[in-house]
């Protein structure tokens, strides 16, 4: 019997590993393509091991466009946006969950409504407003137009609701102000949700394309997602420059890999802990 179960364990492991590999396949494909020759990509697109390694794709890519500038633009705007979104969203989520006031449900209904709108519908009014503030074609404008994020508010509110009332009251009778309770009690207790929001915010903003492509025109002011796309479109014959595009994409993904390495441990860990506690 024991042997049968061990074999079943292995089988499950292998099946799930295959699913996992299928999921991660596009990333591997991109990495592999970035060191292949153009001919090899076109002729054998699904072949995983390159016949020869063309690391010069990377140097060519870096020579062909200001990838480093774009990366920097994306990185700092994303970090600032994520930070500000977490800050404002925490404030609103705290008010929505810990205070009782007239119109609380109305406010939440409005937030929910806003969340459902295609973000495209906000582009025109946002563009008009930023224009009046002379912030078109400016990374500051990109940051300002992303200060609030209804999804982050939504996520934090759902999580803040689970903080036991007793802990808030204990802190109040310990003499803590609402400000202190938010930042020293509620936010640390919802570390999980805050990390989720950080991850989601980072990904959404770093990978964001449409809005920055409308807002930013100068090549130097491009963010990496837009820059990479315009680079691909301006490289002429697609079939010949494909490896260079893949190399550029790989460069663009580096910050995501860094964030992944930092956060990955935490998310996987939290799964371990919970499985022990049961």
């Amino acid at each position, binding site marked *: 019997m024991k042997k049968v179960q061990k074999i079943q364990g292995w089988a499950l492991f292998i099946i799930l590993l295959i699913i996992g590999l299928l999921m991660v396949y596009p990333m591997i494909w991109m990495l592999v393509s970035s060191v292949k020759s153009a001919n090899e990509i076109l002729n054998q697109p699904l072949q995983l091991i390159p016949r020869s390694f063309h690391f010069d794709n990377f140097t060519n890519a870096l020579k062909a466009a200001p990838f480093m500038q774009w990366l920097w633009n994306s990185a700092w705007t994303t970090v600032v946006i994520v930070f500000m979104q977490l800050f404002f969203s925490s404030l609103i989520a705290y008010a929505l969950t810990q205070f009782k006031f007239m119109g609380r449900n109305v406010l939440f209904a409005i937030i929910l409504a806003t969340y459902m709108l295609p973000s495209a519908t906000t582009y025109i009014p946002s563009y008009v407003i930023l224009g009046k503030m002379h912030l078109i074609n400016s990374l500051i404008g990109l940051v300002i137009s992303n200060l609030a994020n209804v999804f982050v508010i939504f996520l934090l509110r759902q999580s803040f609701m689970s903080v036991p009332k007793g802990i808030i*009251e*204990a802190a109040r*009778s*310990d003499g*803590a102000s609402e400000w202190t309770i938010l930042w020293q009690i509620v936010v*640390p*207790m919802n570390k999980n949700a805050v990390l989720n929001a950080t991850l989601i915010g980072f990904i959404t903003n770093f990978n964001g394309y449409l809005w920055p492509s409308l807002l930013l025109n100068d090549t130097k002011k491009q963010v990496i997602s837009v820059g990479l796309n315009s680079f691909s479109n301006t490289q002429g014959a697609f079939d010949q420059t494909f490896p260079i595009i893949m190399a550029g994409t790989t460069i663009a993904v580096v910050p995501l890999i860094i964030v992944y390495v930092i956060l990955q441990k935490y998310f996987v860990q939290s799964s371990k802990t919970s499985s022990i506690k049961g």
Partner: protein
Amino acid sequence: MDLIELKRINKQYENKEKVIEDFDLNIKKGDFTVFLGPSGCGKSTLLRMIAGLEKISAGELLINGELQNDLPPKERNIAMVFQNYALYPHMSVEKNMGFGLKMRGIDKQIIKQKVTDAAKILNLTDYLDKFPGNLSGGQQQRVALGRAIVRESEIYLMDEPLSNLDAKLRAVMREEIVTLHKQMAATTIYVTHDQTEAMTMADRIVILNHGDIQQIGTPKEVYQRPQNMFVASFIGIPPMNLIPLKNHDGKYYLENAELSLKDDLGNQPLVFGIRPEDAFVDNAAPLKMKVTYIEDMGADRYVHGLVNGTKFTLRDGSNNDYQVDQEIGVGFTAQQVSFFDQVSTNRVEANLWK
């Protein structure tokens, strides 16, 4: 002037019935007062109004003669111990205990000293670096106590602090809290539904039901002279046995036996009450009980049965064997009998002759 004065306190949640109506109570400095009652009797609500966590709908709360109604919790010199400990899960034991002092801007060195001292008293010295999630229930309870005592407040409020502990630990913690109370001589209000806690810890018990005071008294008074049938059956495990008396021609009968009272009560309809430990098996007695269930606790044995359909329990010190459905005679100690009015359920002062 008493330390805490509650004057015609009312509590009403939005569009709901009143939970507390015109509640009056004074609490003396240094007293250990227990609010005892079933769940929903308003005892926690009262405590939370004193702490400032719940608004007072009407009436006045005075501490040291000063009106507290609109003071936020942090401006009242009160430390509270919460039912589910309410420890901060992301802070070490040391940080949990020191948080209240830190919020009051106390110097770090002094906080450390006070926390260390409190930890020593509560046997928590080895756990100062641990997090609440890694502690047992009893240790978490000690941290919650420690968090309150480092504050050195004038008033301590405790909301069922032992309700999540097992019987052994509860017994230990009861003694610890009483000892702490004596050391600190601080005024304490303790809310519980556990009458053992009330009996063993209180200087004064306030028994509540539906937001009304049923009786105020020392544990002994409350146990021996319950002021109404609610108190009689709420205090004591198993509770007091209550049997309505029959009344013919101005004479009272407990089932078929006449009871001769010293006092003339006219024809007031009465209920007879006797505690299980004041009743015993006496087969010569005219009161008969049909045994339904024997409960042997080791130290004591309770014989449960029916007296003409009414549940009756007595504590039996003998080693006799009883069978289910057996009929036994029940005697009782005449001095320990209580009487209540059948209608008002209030205590009636009356004594038996024998």
